[in-house]
């Protein structure tokens, strides 16, 4: 049974980690927006910010990762986009979070972080396209989904690999000591 002091310490650490991760995620979004990576698929992005969300899901609880998702989406939309782009990114981000959280809670034995990241990338695209279909009042743009699925797999693998290298490195930091209960 951890003492009261230890618990307060842990929750303070959690807040600090959420803040740092959200800040890094926003910076990654900004960097991504400034390098034009044209993958031949309009609207497809690398999704570098997802690295932070995934790492947070791994170390902390679901609600902490949800906090990172909301903070990152709001902040990067304020800096980069308009109100309508906020609508799309928040629906993509929330669906993506739910899918990743679900897969990580129920499929941890069978799936590695690469799968979680792929599922996150794809559901982000599905969420955005769904919001766009409602916004444009047409279902025609759904024909665009297969290409986005392929793009989601490729970027998902890249992000998943990055997370696989990031987690062991962060595990060595003293800040993350209290959160290393799960097997790698």
């Amino acid at each position, binding site marked *: 049974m951890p003492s009261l002091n230890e618990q307060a310490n842990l929750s303070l650490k959690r807040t600090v980690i959420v803040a740092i991760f959200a800040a890094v995620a926003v910076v990654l979004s900004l960097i991504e927006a400034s390098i034009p990576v044209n993958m031949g698929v309009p609207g497809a992005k690398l999704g570098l910010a997802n690295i932070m969300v995934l790492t947070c899901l791994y170390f902390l609880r679901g609600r902490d990762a949800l906090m990172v998702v909301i903070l990152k989406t709001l902040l990067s939309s304020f800096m980069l986009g308009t109100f309508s782009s906020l609508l799309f990114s928040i629906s993509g981000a929330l669906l993506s979070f739910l899918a990743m959280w679900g897969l990580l809670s129920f499929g941890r034995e069978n799936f590695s972080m690469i*799968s979680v990241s792929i599922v996150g990338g794809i559901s982000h695209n599905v969420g955005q396209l769904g919001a766009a279909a409602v916004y444009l*009042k047409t279902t025609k743009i759904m024909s665009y989904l297969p290409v986005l699925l392929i793009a989601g797999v490729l970027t998902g693998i890249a992000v998943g690999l990055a997370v696989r290298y990031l987690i062991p490195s962060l595990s060595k930091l003293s800040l993350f000591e209290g959160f290393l209960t799960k097997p790698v």
Partner: protein
Amino acid sequence: MKRGDIVLIGLVVVIAAAFLVPRWFGDSPSENNHNTQRIAKITVDGKLFRTVELTGEEQEIEINTEHGYNLLKVHDYGIEMIDADCPDKVCLTFGFIERNGGTIVCLPHKLLVEIEGAPSEGDDIDAIVK
């Protein structure tokens, strides 16, 4: 990588391929050779804005709505978005489209361009730009 990863990747690729492959084989051979008339439907905010016949001649179509400004260019039996004042410019990256079902989307301006075969009656075209 665990086994689940490979299964998942395989599954997604197969699903995507199931949609993509028929599209590649479906519409290319006859239409491009016989020059079937095709039209581009331009929709703004869910309402039809204009229908344009896709011809070999070059022509530019300016779209000014309350949502913003876009410039489309018709040439070589296809259509392309060449300018827009939207913040993200994603619509410009769609490039030149010429096949049936090809789309250009400009989300911030609620604009959708899609290519269709010309209607067989031929009389429900709203405007033909010469």
